[in-house]
């Protein structure tokens, strides 16, 4: 796992908790960490996806008022799902990452709400209202996230080969 990818995820978490809250798309704020984790898992596999999920998730946990570890755990499960289902299927076809982003968003948020609800804090059923538009926004942004992850992956690989 390269430091650059991890730093990017941490930065994305910061951006998500500040800048992007004021720049909504379709009335919702895209979860850049989620998109980064999904894309990175597709490109680099479960191990690196899991590390990305944990790093990004933990950063989000520290920046949000929820329980520490909830984002990390939910993102880890998303990464596992992506690695098992999507990564072997997509073979360069962008449709799979987009579908993963759509369905993964719903699963991720339900999981997040279940985790917070299970531990005594109400996630609020009203939050469900934002999940569908958020899934659409994530589906639309997924090709960008995927392209960025691939670009980062290409920059990392040669150094691994010759380093």
């Amino acid at each position, binding site marked *: 796992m390269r430091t650059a990818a991890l730093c990017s995820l941490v930065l994305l978490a910061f951006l998500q908790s*500040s*800048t992007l809250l004021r720049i909504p798309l379709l009335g919702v704020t895209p979860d850049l960490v989620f998109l980064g984790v999904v894309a990175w898992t597709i490109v680099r596999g479960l*191990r690196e996806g*899991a590390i990305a999920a944990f790093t990004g*998730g933990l950063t989000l946990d520290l920046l949000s008022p929820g329980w520490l*570890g909830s984002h*990390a755990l939910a993102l880890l499960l998303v990464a596992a799902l992506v690695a098992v289902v999507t990564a072997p299927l997509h073979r360069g076809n962008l449709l799979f990452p987009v579908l993963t982003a759509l369905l993964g968003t719903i699963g991720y948020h339900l999981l997040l709400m279940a985790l917070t609800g299970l531990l005594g804090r109400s996630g609020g059923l009203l939050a469900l209202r934002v999940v569908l538009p958020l899934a659409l926004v994530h589906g639309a942004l997924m090709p960008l996230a995927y392209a960025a992850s691939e670009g980062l992956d290409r920059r990392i690989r040669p150094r691994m080969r010759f380093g």
Partner: protein
Amino acid sequence: MRRTGLTFLTLVLVSVALLIADHVAGLGWARAAWNWATVPLQRGLSGSSTELGRLWERWQKAAQLQAENEQLKETIAYLTLENRRYQEIQRENEQLRRLLGLQERYPDLVLLYAEVVGRDPSGLQQVIRVAWSAPAGKTVVVRKGMAVMAPAGLVGRVVRVYGNAADVLLITDVTSAVSAVVQNPDRPTGLVEGRWQAGSRLRMRFVPPEAHVSEGDWVLTSGLQLPPFQEEAVPAGLPIGQVLRVSKTADLHQELELVPAADLDHLERVMIVLGTR
């Protein structure tokens, strides 16, 4: 593969442990430490976010205003068009009222409403084409020689008929001649000829030299059906024009230059005189 599974499992366990620890013991100190370390970054990003947010809002508003502007432009274009249409309807209404007034002014005449649908495209003749719709259940017979009127006065006479349309030779054409009378106590008669192709409008010839004619006198149709006007069906008393200038000719007759009563350049609707009651 085994390494991957181990990493994944470890991270899941750490996450679960964090969840439980935060729930049971509270890990507020961890958040406090994190905040202390990252506040400058968060502050910087928040500052940027405020600026970015403002820019975003402005951009969104600009886009919204642009859309509203486009919509308003469309509305203005539509209303302008509507306004023009209403003006046109109002003008048409006014013209129809005047034509109806014509029927009231000449109750003994049988008039047929017709619309001007064209003009002689060659520009060599002063001819217009008119078309009409026969009133329901009535047969309309339009014949060559019938007079055609506008509210202000005589326009011309029918020279050709094609079903529900006809060509009308305007009184200003050089081939047009109408027997006429000056509306004054002397009542001199003469022949009104078109002069459009000669650079003028109308002239009245063969006015007796002793007759008294003044500028501004009205010239009306006389209704005479003498040769070569036997086929003419122009009733008497229709205004032709007003005397502009009086002059003497070599044969000692008077010649009058007339201004047509009707605005022949802007005809849109006319009445064909079908006959008298």
